[in-house]
């Protein structure tokens, strides 16, 4: 399983961003990290919505 860490605008510039998004299956909601193309500067405004795959040093 891939580990994720919170997106840090200062440390993670240029990394693939993931967003938590829901997928509904009937009455069930499953939330998964989905890779997104959100511009870095835009994501930096709301960093709590984003995560990145953990790498050494994170």
């Amino acid at each position, binding site marked *: *399983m891939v580990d*994720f860490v919170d997106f840090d605008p200062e440390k993670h510039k240029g990394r693939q961003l993931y967003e938590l998004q829901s997928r509904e299956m009937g009455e069930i*909601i499953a*939330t998964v*990290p989905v890779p997104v193309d959100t511009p870095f500067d835009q994501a930096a405004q709301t960093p*709590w*919505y984003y995560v990145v795959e953990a790498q050494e040093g994170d």
Partner: protein
Amino acid sequence: MGEEKRDLLDAYEWVLEIDPGQKGGPGSGHWGHAGRPGQVGGSQSGRMSGHGQVNREYFTKGPGKKIVASLTDKQREAVLVVITNMKVQPRHLQNLHEITTEPHPEIGSVSPNCVTWDNCHQLANYVREGFPPRNSIHINPAYLGSIHPALDWVGHELVIGRNILAHELGHHITTESRWALTPYRGGTDASFILRDAWAGRAGYEGWRPEYEKMGMREYSFKKESEFRADCWLVYQYGRPHQQARLAEYLDVDSLDELFGE
């Protein structure tokens, strides 16, 4: 507190009857009741209106014990670290049956990156009548295992487990919790404020890039449930100026007033 308001709280909010053998203790005393800043005293003896922030005792000795009962000590610690560092009140958690690492029974298993939330929309009408709802959050144990026990909210040592818990709690809180079903300012359900904002504006107006200024994202405007869950996220993690803008969008004085008072 006036009789009328007390009656309202008794009718709609969670009230804890203190075990006579457990009264007293360090701090503000009552289980799960961290007190309210700037106020002396606390809830009435033996009762709790649910407006204090939940603390550790809420989960170790109080009614929150069942919510985390199935978790290991380490997993429970991870959940406690996250939730007790958010502005979560007992009324936000009421109707939440459990947070568990067990797979959801209707899905059969939890895929590696999957967390599920049992959506009990269909039970909403029964909550008022005392029908026991079964909202539950099923979280992959790897996420809980990755939450650092010495949580540092300033540094960025938090991992996705925190975000997932906050997001899923946002769904629960803004839909089925006692908060959501409590009259707001003596009017309709508190959650109606969010539903109204969606129906009256967000739903048809859709996403606009300037809404980043109120802490939201494009996905927040995908559907009403995500909009409501993300309002909770902004309340927890948004910057003050973003929270103020979102409050303005929702037509409330502040997010604290909406979610916290």
